[in-house]
């Protein structure tokens, strides 16, 4: 046989073998291109979401589309709640009812005095020409779920833009300030709690009015006061109330109690830790506050007025009663 022909056969055989190997271990063609394309799309989306105001429309559309799945996701929590509701015994309910009735009596007694005090306060403020309005209305919202990420402190509530909730709205618990609304969807919204490490709230010491800023530490038990001078008059046990500066939170609500003050000679500021008064990690109901100053002109006439407190809603059980 010709050696040339033999070589030719060899080459053909080699070629087919390589093709065979290629087909067996086929690299998914175009995988890398698609990866790069989709990665670029994600980055573009993130930039757009961070910078463009129009993206809220896109997001609310997506949220509306994902609502059924959202409902399914919250199903276990709802079921657990339903089971605990159904399985509470009659005696427990009766005793709780008695307790709450008694408590309601006490609170109403206190509020009688409050009415006259409030009237007096308004008169005094009028004398001082102060334009601080005290009439704040609230709306009760139920906590549906909690963000699963342990590093972000967010809760999900069942009232949304259809109920008049707006971005930046202050949220109260039964015993103190809880946080603010950061994202509003049509039928639900997300609340950033004051203990989230991305949250800061202007406060003042109730005793003497010393101002400070309390930032979250991503632990449910701790807030940290920043830039408090070493010589500042602040003590363990002091109650911190919202100062109303920054115009986001109404003034005068309890925020936290100082638990630890650490003076370090090497540091310019004292290290002050405080525990939130609101029970941030329990409780089922929260209050959304509508204040005159927090309501922007566009929202002042919006459905907020119709959705605000009615006597029936106000008699809902207390937060953190369990």
């Amino acid at each position, binding site marked *: 046989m010709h050696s040339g022909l033999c070589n030719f056969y060899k080459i053909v055989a080699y070629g087919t073998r390589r093709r065979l190997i290629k087909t067996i271990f086929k690299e998914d063609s175009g995988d890398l291109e698609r990866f790069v394309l*989709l990665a670029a799309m*994600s980055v*573009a989306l993130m930039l757009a979401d961070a910078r463009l105001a129009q993206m809220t429309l896109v997001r609310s559309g997506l949220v509306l589309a994902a609502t059924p*799945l959202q409902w*399914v996701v919250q199903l276990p*929590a709802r079921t657990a709640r339903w089971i605990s509701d159904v399985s509470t015994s009659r005696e427990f309910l009766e005793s709780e009812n008695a307790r709450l009735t008694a408590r309601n009596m006490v609170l109403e007694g206190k509020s009688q005095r409050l009415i006259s005090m409030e009237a007096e306060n308004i008169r005094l403020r009028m004398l001082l020409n102060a334009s601080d309005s005290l009439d704040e209305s609230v709306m009760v919202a139920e906590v549906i*779920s909690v963000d699963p990420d*342990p590093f972000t402190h967010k809760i999900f509530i069942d009232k949304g833009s259809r109920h008049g909730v707006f971005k930046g709205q202050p949220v109260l618990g039964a015993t103190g300030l809880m946080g603010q609304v950061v994202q509003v969807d049509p039928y639900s919204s997300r609340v950033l709690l004051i203990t989230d490490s991305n949250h800061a709230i202007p406060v003042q010491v109730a005793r003497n009015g010393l101002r400070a800023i309390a930032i979250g530490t991503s632990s*449910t038990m701790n807030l940290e006061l920043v830039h408090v001078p070493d010589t500042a008059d602040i003590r363990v046990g002091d109650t911190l109330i919202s100062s109303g500066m920054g115009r986001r939170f109404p003034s005068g609500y309890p925020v936290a109690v100082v638990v630890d003050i650490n003076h370090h000679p090497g540091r310019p500021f004292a290290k002050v830790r405080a525990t939130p008064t609101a029970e941030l990690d329990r409780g089922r109901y929260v209050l959304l506050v509508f204040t005159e100053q927090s309501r922007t002109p566009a929202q002042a006439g919006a459905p907020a007025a119709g959705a605000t407190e009615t006597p029936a809603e106000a008699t809902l059980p207390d937060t953190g009663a369990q």
Partner: protein
Amino acid sequence: MEGRPGDNLLIVVSFIVAIVVYNIPLPHVIEYGRPEWISLVLLYWAVALPNRIGLATAWSIGLLLDVLTGAILGRNALAMLLLAFLAHRLYQRLRMFPALQQALIVFLVVGLQLLLLHWIDSFHAVVSPPYFYLIPSLTSALFWPLVYFLLHTARLRAR
């Protein structure tokens, strides 16, 4: 390995279950080690049916998670995309590996994903204390054999 028509339903159901399980509230201490269930399920399908679960699917699932969790749009999309891409590169080897070695790969891949998420977060937020965010990669690796077993038997049953 070509997919069967019955697999489609199983894929959808498994993802929904993963999302639901991921969102179940846990006690505070265990919370830090919450396995990345959705990533594990995606990893399984990307290895088992790489032709069915492509990069676009993974990206869409990530986007859905962004919408559900209220994160910045594209955050989870990019992370899931990375996961699927790595899975597509590794699937032939991963199928051959014994369980322990698979778990090691899962640890690395999920760890990379968490690193990416942390990195994205660090651009626009104050982020968590160092290295805590990597704990889920360890628990994910521990739970990988369970996820693999469950989905595998479910697929065999569905036939």
